[in-house]
């Protein structure tokens, strides 16, 4: 009795069938393994190494043997460095100056494109999206000339607007030294960032708008709701999950701003270091001051700031925030 039963539960498999079973079982693990191998080597290991590095003093040129354990000194050195604090302040100010307008422009824009212009939707979205696909270097070089003090197009346009009757008073009489005046460096950098990412956000919000059922709007308009009321009471609340995604992406991206200020200010940070972001300062610490430990510690301090702000954002706009709104 025993023997046949055991052959039934463990049938003798042909090599072919055994191979089939084997590959069916392990194929998914093999298929996903490249990601995990690459992540381990080029993602996880560097992060662990960077944490290790942040507690050591090390000039990379001296070789691996010359690492000295210094405890928290790299962190305290950064925290007592006024330039580090300035870079953090710059990062946050530029981040807000570019982040808030981005969404304030993108949400109504997406709403207008979605509601108003069915036929023009494709081309308009493409036009607004175009800056996103262009090299930051190229964009920034263009803006560098557009923002030029004496000869820039921006100032030329502003001064011709100033010559207009009635609304002329809104525009400055003097030419604005965008990149040479302490108070204008940050708005200039922010303008480039806004210009580059508005289209990206429009695309995100359009996808959110497309998932809102049309009959909600129909029902509302049957009940006599104005476009503004529809926007305020249907669109905005239902757009919240996408807003959360978009704002999180902006937050993480803006706090790591590097390329735009780096190129606009010619890697110096601009007049009075006003365009020096934390990632720029970290790069400078590593590349020009050759202090890998200090730079690694700086990146962890920035990570901490990003983490805290992401958490705050999560509280304000995330799932828990949504639940409260409901």
């Amino acid at each position: 009795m025993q023997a046949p039963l055991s052959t039934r539960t463990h049938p003798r498999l042909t090599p072919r069938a055994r191979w089939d079973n084997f590959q069916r079982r392990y194929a998914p693990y093999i298929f996903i393994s490249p990601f995990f191998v690459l992540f381990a080597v080029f993602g996880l290991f560097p992060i662990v190494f960077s944490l290790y590095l942040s507690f050591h003093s090390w000039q990379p040129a001296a070789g691996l043997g010359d690492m000295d354990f210094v405890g928290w000194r790299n962190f305290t050195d950064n925290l007592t460095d006024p330039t580090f604090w300035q870079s953090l302040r710059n990062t946050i100010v530029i981040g807000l100056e570019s982040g808030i307008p981005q969404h304030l422009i993108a949400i109504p824009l997406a709403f207008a494109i979605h509601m108003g212009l069915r036929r023009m939707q494709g081309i308009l979205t493409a036009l607004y999206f175009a800056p996103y696909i262009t090299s930051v270097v190229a964009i920034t070089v263009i803006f560098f000339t557009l923002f030029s003090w004496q000869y820039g197009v921006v100032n030329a346009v502003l001064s011709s607007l100033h010559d207009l009757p009635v609304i002329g008073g809104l525009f400055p009489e003097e030419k604005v030294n965008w990149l040479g005046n302490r108070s204008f460096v940050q708005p200039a950098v922010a303008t480039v960032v806004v210009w580059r990412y508005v289209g990206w956000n429009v695309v995100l919000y359009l996808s959110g708008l497309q998932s809102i059922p049309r009959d909600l709007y129909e029902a509302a308009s049957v009940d006599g709701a104005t476009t503004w009321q529809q926007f305020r009471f249907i669109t905005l609340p239902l757009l919240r999950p996408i807003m959360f995604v978009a704002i999180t992406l902006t937050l993480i991206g803006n706090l790591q701003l590097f390329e735009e200020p780096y190129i606009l200010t010619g890697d110096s940070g601009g007049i009075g270091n006003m365009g020096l972001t934390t990632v720029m300062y970290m790069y400078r610490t590593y590349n020009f001051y050759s202090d890998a430990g200090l730079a690694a510690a700086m990146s962890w301090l920035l990570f901490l700031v990003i983490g805290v702000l992401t958490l705050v954002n999560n509280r304000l706009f995330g799932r828990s925030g949504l639940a409260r709104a409901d």
Partner: protein
Amino acid sequence: MAIATPTVKSPVRPRGTVRPLSRWAAVALLFLGALLTVAPFYFMFVFATHTRAEIFQIPPPTWFGEAAGRNYDSLLERLPFWRNLWNSLYLALMSTVTTLFFCSLAGFAFAMYNFRFREGLFGVVLATLLIPSALNIVPFALIMQALGWINTPRALWVPGMASAFGIFLMRQYIGSAIPKELVEAARIDGASEFGIYRRIILPLCGPALATLGLVTFVNSWNSFVGPLIIFRTAETYTAPLALRSLQGIANTDWGALMCGVALTVLPLLIVFVFFSRQLIEGLTSGSLKG
């Protein structure tokens, strides 16, 4: 229930009804915004055809000039620019091909198989998206130094072969667009697991592959921080890096620089004109709606 009258503003307004003034104002504003968005591109190409002196005159030029040839010659005098463009192209193609292969393979596994730890492992993939890349800059430079990969493009495309974003996009697409029965049927017909991927999944992934391919290509072509760390000689520079090196010189030849900028941006703009719909639709439906 009120009955809809023609005066009620409705998104389902019947054809032929007159649009209110506010609607026209919105349309005008939309196009003004689009104009502002496109203007820098316009000036990019206008400036590429002017000498340095002409770019910085009052008022600035607003129409095409005649110095395009001179700018081009000056650009090639300063930089091996075609070599730089080739470096960008090589890097972008290698990234794109490898990303498409590894991400679609992993996306297939996550979408079509039931295996232990599937959700957990996918969670890990998504979590890696939240790691700030700034954290990685210093160790990345050190590792590439240690591997001897400085000045070689593989330092940039090898680490990016299987991107988390790509896996996410492919899983969403394969899971929603390809029925599981198709895979079962192929298995009964005796196809191997990799054979199913190659002969069934891959041919059906066209739209998602196109979107992911475009995104990867564009990101790689435009990348700056990675190349800035890896490429140290003018011969190995990618196009954006080469342009950056032109700008550093005290007496920048803005005409030549603009010519280089135009040459770098033009190929992408041409691709974008043909594939913008594909790209935007793929990004919106694939990545978010799921």
